[in-house]
């Protein structure tokens, strides 16, 4: 096993799946980069370089630079998926969903149901989310709750390089439409990633820490924050279970309910705005299904109900911090400093 970055892990998953199945194509704005120009043709590989290197291997027929027409090319990916390809489309930032959401939530998500089960739409939409890049209000949102709300979509939120590779391979092999969320602040994160191909099944949470005092359920990048907090608190003798659901849809309600019941004290960490988000989703689930096991209020740690600010000083205050997670754990366990 080798150390690889989140970027490399996703890239490797794409490459291996494209080698395995000729129906897999990638498309998006500057997914290769340089089209029509007189210099380097694989100049970008997307703004973060994730798809760099695919063009020389698979050619422009399968690595397709698109114009800036998200409805057009995301819709084309959906239509291609319904007719025999397995496209991986790149919605550069999830913040751009507003110009193409229809093709995702009214078309891809609903074909199977509306058409009485007869359609298959194996499209993957990769997208970047999250704050921390000083990218301001229109390039820093999470929004996975919106996709999670929509029946017919699956939503993956890999929390580290290992997860990223395995979940991407599953996403491509999955016959349902999958929205694959990559956190923009994680591309350089490194971790052990096997060279060989492997798929991580959807809907199976990963318990990253086991403990007795509290259960932290966290999403995406926040899983790492939760792990760090758990490690820190364990030195004080406060031990936490940390749950990474991996996918918000399907959601591994079983593991969530079990681990919540075990400690009876729950913190849910969601980088998103607070209203109708995954923190409320999981809290409500537990409160309905495991109420009798709860020993304390469920605490939610989220961003505030405000757009993401540009200023570094404000953005740092904006993002759910490890301090806030730690405080929440102390609060539910009743163990303050």
């Amino acid at each position, binding site marked *: 096993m080798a150390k690889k970055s989140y970027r490399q892990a996703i890239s490797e998953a794409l490459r291996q799946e494209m080698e395995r199945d000729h*129906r897999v*194509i990638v498309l998006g704005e500057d997914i290769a980069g340089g089209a029509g120009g007189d210099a380097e043709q694989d100049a970008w590989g997307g703004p973060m370089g994730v798809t760099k290197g695919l063009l020389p291997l698979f050619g422009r*027929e*399968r690595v*397709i630079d*698109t*114009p800036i*027409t998200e*409805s*057009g*090319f*995301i*819709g*084309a*990916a*959906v*239509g*291609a*998926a*319904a*007719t*025999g*390809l397995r*496209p991986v489309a790149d919605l550069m930032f999830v913040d751009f969903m507003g110009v193409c959401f*229809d*093709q995702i939530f*009214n*078309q891809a998500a609903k*074909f*199977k*149901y*509306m*058409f*009485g*089960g*007869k*359609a*298959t739409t194996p499209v993957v939409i990769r997208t970047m989310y999250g704050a921390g890049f000083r990218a301001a209000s229109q390039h820093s949102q999470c929004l996975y709750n919106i996709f999670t709300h929509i*029946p*017919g979509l*699956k939503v993956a939120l890999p929390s580290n390089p290992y997860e990223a590779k395995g979940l991407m391979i599953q996403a491509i092999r*999955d*016959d*349902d439409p999958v929205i694959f969320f990559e956190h923009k602040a994680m591309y350089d994160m490194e971790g052990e990633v096997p060279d060989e191909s492997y798929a991580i099944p959807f*809907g199976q949470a990963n318990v990253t820490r086991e403990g007795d005092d509290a259960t932290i359920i966290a999403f995406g990048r926040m899983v790492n924050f939760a792990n760090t907090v758990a490690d820190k608190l364990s030195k004080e003798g406060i031990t936490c279970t940390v749950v990474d659901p991996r996918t918000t849809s*399907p959601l591994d309600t079983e593991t969530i309910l079990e681990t919540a019941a075990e400690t009876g004290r729950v913190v849910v960490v969601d980088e998103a705005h607070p209203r109708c988000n995954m923190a409320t989703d999981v809290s409500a689930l537990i409160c309905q299904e495991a109420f009798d096991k709860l020993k304390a209020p469920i605490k939610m740690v989220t961003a505030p109900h405000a757009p993401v600010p540009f200023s570094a000083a404000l953005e740092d205050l904006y993002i759910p911090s490890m301090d806030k997670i730690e405080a929440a754990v102390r609060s539910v366990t009743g163990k303050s400093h």
Partner: protein
Amino acid sequence: MQLSREDLLKAYRRMVMIREFEEAVHEEFSAGSIPGFVHLYAGEEASGVGVCMHLNDNDYIASTHRGHGHCLAKDCDEHAMMLEIFGKKEGLCGGKGGSMHIADLSKGMMGANGIVGGGPPLICGAALTAKTLKTGGVAVAFVGDGASNQGTVFESYNLAKILNLPAIFVVEDNGYAEATSSRYSVAGSQVNRGKAFDIPAVEVDGSDFFAVWEAAREAVERARNGGGPSLIHSRVLRYYGHFEGDAMTYRPADEVANYRAQKDPLMQFRRRVTEAGLLDGSALDEIDRSVKDRIAQCVVQAKSAPEPTEADLLTDVYISY
């Protein structure tokens, strides 16, 4: 390429099928047996059929909210369609879709669409599949005059052109988007809109089967031969309201009657083929009769067919979950 006798019979049969189907749905809706939003294609038959005569099951079309005609032109089963419109379990979509969401991918029919402008991007995808997997197929998007103003449509023109996709855009301009005239809503011209993207574009009289057929022949040939996308502006008229229940006060009282008398597509077709001695009236009469019977039968069966049940409510959401 020429239209054989069989082709002519098939074309006529499909047009009559659409007309009879829509008349029946109109009647049943008025009688209260069909729920929901229903948009009829009666009057526009020559347009959909003129185009789809060039297509096979390997070719895809994407339709609109006004989808029955396109489905029938693309050879979807009229019986299963009628059941679907009645919301029955054996309907083409298990009763889950209804009039606005009829689809049959096995026939290359990618679905009616409740979202105006929803189809063209999908058709770029079907065309991309054809190009990438070299299936030899082409893909056609039907676009209303109202839809022609939707951003997704222009995006699709551009995408189809720059990727040189085997895609055809048929703008079926029936003069209205709901109650709004295309004279008001459409700046410029459909043909110039196509040409602005370097897409070959022509205008045809969509009530004339042969004119549509000829324009579509060129476009389909071009697409199959790697020549990229085309646009056809097909002028038509719808005989009924925007949806069933529409009082149509925005239309001059005699608009439809005059058109029916002078330009009805079935009438035109019949006159043309009989005058040219290509088919005789009795063969056409026979089609009229048999289709009428067939549709009547479909309605009767649709009425008594079983409803979906609670067991069907949560199936078909995912393939695996």
